[in-house]
């Protein structure tokens, strides 16, 4: 097949999600010519996600056409090396997006910063408990950045995504009403916090009685009409639910479509090309300089886009796979522990306790946009882990995310799965339960990794990415502890029954859990344990930046999106320095 070679640009960006859109905006605003390649379709937020059609749980949650089309490209999965990995044939545990705007177009708006502890986890754990406290097969690593370096970039991201919340720590001063355990903030949130629901008020009362400090968790669904850093206007959230999995009809949920692209697409030196599937990053004869990328365009033509700088800003799976397909960086070998691409893949632990009432009725369909009341005492390393015997933690909350009728029903334990008794139970308890959710961390391990599958191929004949992943004892011990604490909170809520869900001993790819897949091309200070340096610059190819969840060395408890956005702002600033002096930034 003949390859069309296009005119070179300053920067080519792969992916138009949180990373691709923000980095394109920052670099195009600085005067660079930027082309952004997106495998998914272009959507018009004003017509494609109109009311009332967006309020359709079946279409958006079960049969979505804004999630990755697995017929063309999926992953294979196995729990361990002794098994044969098989394709993820239908969407289950997680739902990466495939559209202009990326996965964040359908995120839930959970906009939490990580804690200062999270970025220096290995050093701090080793200092407090000794190296031997870290499990032998655990690749616990520092990120190579400190809180003081990255805090201004969290601030920048929050000004772009209009995050609403109440500061709990302003420059070291603890503030009433906020999260007292958060890292010091340089200023208040750009928008006010959410208001407290009935469930939130009950939760706050219960956790206060146990000595915890409740606060309204931050949200990226607008808590008032807001004009952001890029002068884009967003409307206040109408609290109609249909939030995660859906694109907001109100345009109230910050995401690339609502917060960045309206400003970005006006820039004359920026071009967005949807329906373009990137196959590889090209390098010169030394293998140390990227020359651009090769992709299949919407008409099926193979196209080469030369560029001075290449940014991989796609989902964690695609970033890692493109490095492997391009032969950039040494692939990770779990037997020797050598190699970095595919190393430190991780996911998210979690569970929930359901409290059933016979004397209270809620309005579980009113909400969405991360209306939640949280506590952070179990997060980070606040409570001495020595006697508990695990590393990691969780934030715990009750969230009114808009309970939809197919998936948002809860029934007490012991209820049959179907039939007349089940019908009575859903009628009784759909409006008479509340959930205490545990959003927990997950460390990285030698035997959890990503590589190329030896058997299964995508629609272009290229190998699928293979995930080898299972839960580990550290996380199972942590979840046992967290469940016990949440049952105490559940008891303090004085319901009539308690129930719960957890992920089981082995990770399974069915049943939605979270789209918080991370790692595979992690950042760090040592080229033998990280694929990119602290500025997200490839150790091997200095004009290649790999930015996103792929850079997380392990997964802290808080949702990843805010930190992915922060890293986009941080890396964009580093590239502005790199352009002035194009060498390794470290």
């Amino acid at each position, binding site marked *: 097949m003949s390859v069309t070679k296009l005119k070179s640009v300053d920067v080519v960006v792969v992916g138009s999600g949180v990373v691709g859109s923000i980095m394109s905006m920052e670099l195009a605003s600085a005067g660079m010519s930027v082309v952004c390649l997106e495998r998914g379709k272009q959507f018009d937020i004003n017509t494609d996600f109109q009311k009332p059609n967006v309020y359709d749980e079946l279409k958006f949650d079960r049969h979505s056409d804004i999630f990755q089309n697995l017929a063309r490209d999926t992953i294979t999965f196995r729990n361990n090396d002794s098994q044969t990995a098989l394709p993820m044939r239908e969407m289950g545990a997680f739902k990466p997006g495939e559209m202009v705007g990326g996965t964040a177009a359908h995120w839930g708006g959970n906009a939490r910063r990580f804690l200062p502890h999270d970025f220096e986890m290995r050093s701090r754990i080793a200092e407090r408990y000794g190296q031997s406290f870290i499990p032998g097969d655990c690749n616990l690593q520092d990120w190579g950045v400190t809180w003081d370096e990255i805090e201004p970039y969290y601030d920048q991201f929050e000004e772009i995504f209009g995050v609403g919340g109440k500061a709990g720590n302003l420059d070291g001063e603890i503030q009433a009403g906020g999260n007292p355990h958060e890292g010091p903030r340089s200023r208040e949130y750009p928008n006010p916090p959410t208001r407290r629901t009935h469930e939130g008020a009950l939760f706050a009362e219960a956790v206060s009685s146990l000595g915890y400090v409740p606060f309204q968790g931050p949200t990226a669904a607008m808590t008032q009409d807001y004009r952001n850093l890029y002068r884009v206007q967003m409307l206040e959230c109408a609290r109609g639910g*249909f939030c995660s999995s859906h694109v907001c009809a109100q345009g109230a949920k910050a995401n690339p479509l609502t917060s960045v692209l309206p400003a970005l697409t006006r820039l004359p030196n920026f071009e967005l090309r949807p329906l373009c599937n990137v196959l590889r990053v090209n390098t010169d004869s030394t293998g140390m300089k990227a020359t651009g990328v090769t992709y299949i365009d919407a008409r099926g033509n193979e196209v080469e886009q030369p560029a001075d700088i290449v940014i991989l800003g796609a989902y964690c799976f695609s970033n890692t796979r493109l490095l492997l397909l391009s032969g950039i960086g040494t692939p990770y070998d779990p037997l020797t522990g050598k190699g970095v691409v595919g190393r430190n893949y991780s996911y998210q632990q979690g569970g929930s306790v359901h409290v059933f009432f016979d004397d209270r009725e809620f309005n579980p369909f009113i909400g969405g946009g991360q209306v939640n009341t949280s506590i952070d005492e179990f997060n980070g390393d606040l409570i001495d882990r020595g006697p508990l015997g695990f590393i990691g933690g969780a934030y715990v909350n009750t969230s009114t995310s808009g309970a939809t009728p197919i998936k948002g029903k809860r029934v007490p334990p012991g209820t049959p799965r179907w039939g007349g008794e089940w019908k009575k139970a859903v009628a009784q308890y759909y409006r008479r339960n509340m959930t205490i959710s545990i959003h927990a961390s997950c460390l990285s391990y030698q035997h959890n990794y990503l590589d190329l599958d030896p058997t299964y191929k995508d629609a272009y004949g290229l190998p699928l990415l293979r995930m080898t992943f299972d839960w580990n004892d550290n996380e199972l011990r942590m979840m046992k502890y967290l469940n016990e604490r949440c049952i105490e909170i559940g008891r303090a809520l004085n319901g009539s029954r308690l129930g719960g869900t957890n992920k089981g001993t082995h990770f399974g790819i069915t049943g939605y859990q979270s789209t918080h897949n991370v790692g595979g091309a992690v950042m760090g200070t040592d080229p033998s344990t990280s694929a990119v340096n602290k500025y997200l610059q490839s150790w091997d190819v200095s004009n290649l930046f790999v930015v996103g969840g792929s850079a997380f060395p392990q997964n802290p408890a808080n949702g990843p999106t805010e930190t992915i956005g922060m890293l986009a702002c941080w890396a964009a600033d580093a590239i502005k320095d790199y352009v002035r002096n194009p060498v390794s930034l470290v």
Partner: protein
Amino acid sequence: MTLSDNPIGASYIYLLEPEIRFLEAAVEHLIPTDELGPGARDAGVVVYIDRTLASTWGVHGRQYRGGPWLAGTPQQGYQSRFTPQEVYRIAIREINQHCKAGFDRPFAQLAGDRQLHLIEQLEKDEIAMPSLSSKFFFDLLWRNTEEGYFADPLYGGNRDKVGWKLLGFPGVPSGQYRHLVTSHEPYFAEPVSVLDIQTGKVAVDAEGFPKHVIIKRNGNGER
């Protein structure tokens, strides 16, 4: 409660007559008609199943279909070679053969308690079917039954919004919700569907939200 005429309930795109009879009997056991309201059969769940099998999902249009096809572990999820369309066609035929061999009649013509027992056996994987696992079929049937009963009536099930009335779910949100987030008072409204708005049965305001009709309840909390 009476069910209004729903013209989309009258036709079937994929399912054949014996399959419709089988499914009408089976889904009624999964969500039965009782004092709380109509069950899955009268809610149009079989019409929903027909529509969903005829959709992109029914042929696994967005699912990975490449071989080799290996059994896999429970953690590895759906690994059947068959599309949902094929699963229903094969499974219903084989269950009816099982019923005819044992009881001289297809499933739909057996007594209710016999049907119920057979469904329990399907769920426990206790019926040996030549081509696929009975539990695998049961799980798919239950998933689609729940979808049909609670999805928007747009898709042929949840007729008269019976699933939403059962829960007290008001459907398409009202523009007033933003003022009710902090309320401790239970909010009950006649449910509004996407179908209601598309067919002009319910009007919307300038923002595109429907106006809800609030249901008044007596002192016992009963409607």
